[in-house]
């Protein structure tokens, strides 16, 4: 037991050191409360402070498969038409059926093209939302993805 304990102490020390090194990354504020919420509507309102989210489907291209072959690795691509919706500030991906619906929030500077590709986990068939924040407001595009096997193991 004493050996285990000392290893834990070392690990804690390393973690503290790593946390200090990691400080500059906090340039953007993380809404950790929203990330931990299990209810989709609650997570969304906590993340966006109850602001109106307009349908942005004419300015947002959300590419997702109709059926997720491997739900744990679902390809998602978003392109935002800035001439319609305004200058892109952030994109948040949410999957309603996931235990924690918020997958990720990306913060864009003006130098980045308004498009992004990533891979998210889906816990079964679910609506997937891309919520786009521009200098004009909040917009969303959604698509239902069918999946039979859960992708959120562990």
């Amino acid at each position, binding site marked *: 037991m004493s050996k285990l304990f000392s290893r834990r102490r070392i690990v804690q020390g390393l973690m503290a050191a790593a946390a200090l090194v990691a400080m500059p990354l906090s*340039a*953007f504020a993380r809404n950790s409360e929203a990330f931990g919420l299990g209810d989709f509507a609650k997570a969304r309102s906590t993340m966006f402070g109850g602001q109106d989210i307009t349908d942005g489907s004419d300015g947002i291209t959300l590419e997702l498969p109709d059926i997720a072959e491997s739900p744990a690795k679902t390809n998602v691509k978003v392109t935002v038409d800035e001439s319609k919706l305004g200058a892109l500030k952030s994109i948040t991906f949410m999957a309603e059926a996931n235990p924690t619906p918020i*997958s990720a929030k990306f913060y864009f500077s003006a130098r*980045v093209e308004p498009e992004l*590709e*990533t*891979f998210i986990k889906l816990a079964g068939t679910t609506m997937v939302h891309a919520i786009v924040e521009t200098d004009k407001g909040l917009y969303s595009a959604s698509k239902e993805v069918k999946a039979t096997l859960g992708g959120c193991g*562990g």
Partner: protein
Amino acid sequence: MADHARSEEIANYKPRTRVRLRLKEADNAADNVLSVMTMVVHPMTPGIERDAEDNPVIKDGKVSILEHKTHHLVGWECKVNGEVVLAADLSGSVSKDPIINFAVKGVEAGDTFALSWTDNQGFSDTEEQVVKGRKKK
């Protein structure tokens, strides 16, 4: 919760970060586009506590997370010449070995590109590369 020793798997984790850059040069450097493909080798374990029926355990409206088992990226950030161009907050519902692809405008050969990240268990890594130009035809 934080007092739990980390699992063997987490303790043995070794950060690896991959970045592939491709610069498309235009006549005017401001119109150059750098396409960026990134991958962090990471388990992205959400560490969600599950009941006997495999349903997530909810406590006070929040999903119960087993801190000593959860291991996923939290902060992710790309810089060009020290200036943040794209940043992200991630959760455990981003796929294992997160891939994030995007493009940056106005990058020139010789600029420095860096991807840095941190995870919830105190690991972090930075991959830095100098942007290479292509020979003009």
